[in-house]
């Protein structure tokens, strides 16, 4: 008996089930309102109602949410790289007193999920009057122990000769970190960037806590504002907004599948 065709069929069926929410989200986002609210449910729209997308952008500041997402993700990534790369480099390539202690801090930090630090960080931001601004969304993520771990591993493999040669050429350590080591660590940086951007574009926990002003809502926070304010008659535009919010990462994933899978799979290391 041939089992392969049966297995293949089951795999395709399973994939179809996994894709069902994506399919339904896109289908509803293109349906005219009267086709959404009918007792009998059609899988596909009879005609494409593109105005749902236009309404998604006018009924809530969706473009603003997207821009906020870009600002927050970019801000976090830049800060994380500025703080982690030099430290990771020193951990891998220099001998200094307290090196074991600092590396121990990195490992211990991996044990701490962000949720654990939320209350004191919220208190501190409130004291500093920084809540409800980009700073509140960006600053708490500046220290990425996962990034330190990842970059340290990569920098440890750089040949010592390379760094000695750069020293002989008169380069400062700062220049060695940013002009020699960091460009060589681009594969690690890419993996880290994908991991960081995915985590923060999708995060709801912290934006829900740190902001109450829709003007600085990140995409997931913004789409919740939309869902909560519409009274159930704007399902088409709501689904259109969901498509728009999901699209950047999904398209990125489809374009760079391998890099994405590797990055997210190594991300499992972090707590």
């Amino acid at each position, binding site marked *: 008996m041939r089992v*392969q065709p049966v297995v293949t069929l089951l795999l395709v069926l399973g994939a179809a089930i996994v*894709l069902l929410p994506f399919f*339904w989200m896109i289908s*509803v986002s293109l349906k005219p309102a009267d086709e959404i609210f009918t007792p009998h449910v059609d899988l596909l729209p009879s005609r494409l109602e593109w105005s749902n997308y236009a309404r998604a952008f006018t009924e809530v500041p969706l473009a603003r949410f997207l821009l906020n997402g870009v600002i927050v993700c970019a801000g976090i990534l830049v800060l994380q790289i500025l*703080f982690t790369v030099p430290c990771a480099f020193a951990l891998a390539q220099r001998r200094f007193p307290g090196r074991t202690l600092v590396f121990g801090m990195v490992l211990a930090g991996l*044990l701490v999920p962000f949720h654990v630090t939320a209350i004191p960080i919220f*208190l501190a931001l*409130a004291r500093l009057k920084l809540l409800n601004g980009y700073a509140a969304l960006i600053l708490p993520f500046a220290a990425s122990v996962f990034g330190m771990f990842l970059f340290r591993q990569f920098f440890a493999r750089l040949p010592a000769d390379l760094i000695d040669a750069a020293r002989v050429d008169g380069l400062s350590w700062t220049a060695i970190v940013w002009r020699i080591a960091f460009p060589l660590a681009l594969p690690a940086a890419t993996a880290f960037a994908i991991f960081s951007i995915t985590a923060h574009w999708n995060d709801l*926990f912290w934006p829900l806590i740190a902001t109450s002003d829709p003007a600085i809502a990140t995409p997931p926070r913004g789409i919740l504002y939309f869902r909560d304010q519409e009274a159930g008659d704007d399902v088409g535009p709501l689904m259109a907004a969901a498509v728009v919010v999901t699209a950047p990462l999904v398209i990125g994933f489809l374009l760079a599948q391998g890099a994405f899978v590797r990055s997210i799979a190594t991300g499992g290391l972090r707590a």
Partner: protein
Amino acid sequence: MRPGRRIREALTDLWLVGPGVAAMLALIFVPVALVAVLSFTDYQFGARSFRWVGLENYHRLFTDPIGRKAVTNTLLYVAIVIPFSMTLALLVALGLHRLAQTMPRLSGILQAAYFLPVAATLVAMAIAWQMLLHPSIGPVNAVLKQLGLPAPDWLSDRGLVLYTLAAIGIWQSVGYNMVLFLAGLAAIPRHLYEAAAVDGATRGWERFWTVTWPMLGPTTLFVAVITATNAFRVFETVATLTRGGPAFASDTLVYALYREGFVYFKAGYASAITMVFFVVMMVLTLAQFALIERRVHYR
């Protein structure tokens, strides 16, 4: 070394390491210490003072019906997600691993499909699920009604809601676990199957039990711990779909932490919830480290 040079070197180290260490202290270690201290107080956000209450917050979490509900719900959620997500992921990985030999393109496309929920924005996808499961305009219940089956209120039925959230959690995590299993499968040396065939294990099941399953052992354990770690922090779907309701039937630890801390501003009690969550996560992550370490030696 000359003293001048030594000072220069020390300054270089400080310049490179200092900002990172300061950030780790300010954003991780000091907050952890503070949250541990706060968990023994009745502090409320905005209050001028607080009282030491000893273990009262912890006592409340485990004896108060609502607190206990959050703990048991989280455990039940994790207990459902782990076996289902892992079994499905293993089956999919085994199937795709084999399919890759005959139809690599199709295998690749299916792999992308299964992985898609991992990359997608969970809040947006949760709203898509809400529409899919909608009692009056959702296709799931429309099909059930057509088949003459009961059409339940997936997200507002007290007895059902946690299972619905768990199903979404499984949907979201299968692709991730599949990737880990595929990596495990790719690492099994071919000659083991050949040796097994010589010993008479030629049928699919025999090959699986004599070679694949024992060789996947470390991966399986690792996947179990990772799935548990991720399931324990379930928050996005709860916050989007149920807010812990109805009647706390889908309340979980992280959602309770959020609600008590940032909706009711009970920082002390929320800190105790945080600490319980922290201890569980710490144990799971340490297990993860130990397994990674062992896997390295294993190869």
